[in-house]
């Protein structure tokens, strides 16, 4: 199972510290001196609906629709995530349309790599959460979130959840008998 970075909306306070950390972690080292709205490209975006605040980012789908529709093999299954090989991107945006979560974008290279001179080929790149795999301390968003709302989830965590839920269901059965189980299942 791919790992993924995801937030607990119950702890998000919508401060956007994660967005800044993400954008800066994917920018040249001195980006704090040159950052602008145009070059500010976080891979996660804080969304505030009427009832929920949470950052939204790539789920690293194990059967990723973005990778399935990509005509050039830009999106590939990596060891832990769906990885991007930016030099292969032709900017068709099939990935953007296919992704139901809205967490992958195709953006111009001159914004993404302001420190790199134009090399004549790749103009655009698919951009999404990369689990900060090349960052020593791991995901930047997780590190800076003041309420520790963001987590990295792997198969061990998922297995633990499934176990807890089974235990909970079993307990429900014992307490209420079959009726309780049926009414619980209806809900």
């Amino acid at each position: 199972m791919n790992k993924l970075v995801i937030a607990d909306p119950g702890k998000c306070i919508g401060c956007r510290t994660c967005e800044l950390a993400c954008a800066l972690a994917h920018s040249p080292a001195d980006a704090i001196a040159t950052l602008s709205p145009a070059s500010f490209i976080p891979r996660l975006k804080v969304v505030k609906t009427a009832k929920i605040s949470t950052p939204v980012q790539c789920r690293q789908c194990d059967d990723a629709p973005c990778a399935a529709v990509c005509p050039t093999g830009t999106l590939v299954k990596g060891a832990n995530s769906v990885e991007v090989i930016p030099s292969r991107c032709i900017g068709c945006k099939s990935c953007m349309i296919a992704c139901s979560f809205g967490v992958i974008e195709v953006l111009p290279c001159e914004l993404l790599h302001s420190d790199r001179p134009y090399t004549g080929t790749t103009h655009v790149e698919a951009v999404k959460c990369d689990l900060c795999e090349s960052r020593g301390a791991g995901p930047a968003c997780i590190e800076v979130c003041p309420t520790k709302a963001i987590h990295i989830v792997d198969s061990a965590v998922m297995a633990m959840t499934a176990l807890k839920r089974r235990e909970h269901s079993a307990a429900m059965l014992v307490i209420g008998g079959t009726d309780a189980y049926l009414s619980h299942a209806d809900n």
Partner: protein
Amino acid sequence: MAEKVLTVCPYCGSGCKLNLVVENGSIIGAEPANGVTNEGELCLKGYYGWDFLNDTKLLTPRLKKPLLRVNRNAEFKEVSWQEAIHFAATRLMEIKQKYGPDSIMLTGSSRGPGNEANYVMQKFARAVVGTNNVDCCARVCHAPSVAGLQATLGNGAMSNSIGEIEETKCILVFGYNAADSHPIVARRIIKAKEKGAKIIVCDPRFIETARIADLYLPIKNGSNMAIVNAFANVLIEEELYDKDYVARYTEGFEQYKAVVAKYTPEYVERIAGVPAAQIRQAMHMYAAAPTATLLWGMGVTQWGQGVNVVKGLAGLALLTGNLGHPNCGVGPVRGQNNVQGACDVGVLPNTFPGYQKVTDPEARARFAKAWGVAELPAHVGHCLTEVPHLVEEGKLKAYYIFGEDPAQSEPDLAAFREAMGKLELVIVQDIFMNKTAMFADLILPATSWGEHEGIYSSADRGFQRFNKAIEPKGDVKPDWEIIGLLATAMGYPMNYKNTEEIWNELRELCPLFYGATYEKLDGLGYVQWPCPTTDHPGTTYLYKDNKFDTPSGKGIFVATDWIPPHEPTDEQYPLVLCTVREVGHYSARTMTGNCRALQTLADEPGYVQINSLDARKSGIEDQKLLWISSRRGKVMVRALVTDRANLGAVYMTYQWWIGACNELTGGHHDPISKTPEYKYTAVKLERIEDQAAAESRLQKDYGELRARHAAAIG
């Protein structure tokens, strides 16, 4: 080689400790430190709010040299410190001579300068100028809390500590948006919830804390006093209050009960717009909890009845015995990083350092003796918010503004500007060229946070040392040194060697702070006053053994009738404007506006939060520019259409210079605390058809504003 300098964040009152990473004399980053309140966390301001020290000039340029101009239409000229001090001293003495010392107003600074500089300023005001006209931005913030709590419990500060919020069993959040004001306090609220605490939120807006609340009361804007009285009513009528506690440790219960008697939940339903059952449920929850904490903010204080609502809230804590032990209490969470400190060291018109009253002859004599003057002014001085009126009445002639931006943060800015124009002398001491500095005759450039050291007081009375990380650039001086030079030039020699000397002088005069030595505050040291002796560790919670700091030693109940907000809405101005904070910028934005990362996230003209139905009625679309106007002014702002805003009310943050909400607000204030009613102004929205023209006008105006500030420096 990078060096790490331990210091305290200069933004909000959470008092987060952080390390500034310094390389080759410049700051290159910030990392969290394991401070008592922040426990290794920071928000985006702590992480990315330091690059203004590199003089980015994103918003305004850094002040680097004293600037003087012959009149308000002339250009500023760079002058030497000698000339600047000479001018200031001469003019101040002239005005004092001609109009009396009370014709001069001075401010303290609740942000970067620190306690020592503020102490020196109030000493200057009192011993050198001879006036108690010294005030700080608590005036527009928690002054009602200070006044209300001093009257009922005897101490105007948070009764318990920020860390205790995590352990309480019930948090009643009233008119307080922790997520935007104090992320590190929001963290504690979330942790409390994780540990099983009940969360009750009273707020017209669906704030972040409301999302996780067990009970959310969407009270109507302006119904605070009614709701608080109804809460008291429920506790008393349903006999949920601690009778024993009330009998033993309080006074005034019978009158209190009589006043709140008519505020039944059914009666208040109409005023507050929440069902009676919910009002009752809130008190059932609050009273049933083994420990319960009240947290409040500007939603309580920035009203014409702010002081009385605070007294009412204190009453709820007294009724339920939620005082005098850990994990409970009353929490007016102080906004700015050193507003608590500014109050602590007496930058207030009615108190000396350590909350000793200026009207107390004994205190006056003691301070006069320590400061080597025959006597000190005996009557309470004027407040910041009274300045426009006083100027109109011809009572104020000079204004010495230090580390404060009233041209941004005062209400009814048009009136403020008019008043500034009429002053004979305006001296501004600051780090950036800001809107207030544009009114000055003389500008004194000071060192910034990061370039000097000292002590801040956090929101829960915690003293912490902050340190110098880099050398200041330009011909600037630390605030206390500037004031010292001025005092000396006016005939009162003041030659402190360093901040520790100032602090030690202060300690000798303040029994409450005596034990908080520089040594104790080394490193991650955290001492919450009262700290009476050097071997005392500080006080995490107040009123131990239910001994209150009132004259009788008992908690005092005070209830008042609800009065509606001052400025009515009508057909022409049908919506209510309430001013609020945003998390990514701080206050008047002179610092964060010059921080690249923070500016990238949010820039002019700022947003007005509008409910979707109200937006539709006025033809306003999300993200589009619009005009918003009140009976006083009109500004351009961008729409944020969200159903988190309640019907009939709109919300703007006060950080913006173009989308300046204080052009719209009015000066009606609480009669006791003089805190303006920022939370209720009648406004209307106007759709802008030609968005392209509006966007380019916005850019043009913004550019011109920045250019004017840059040009002023030359």
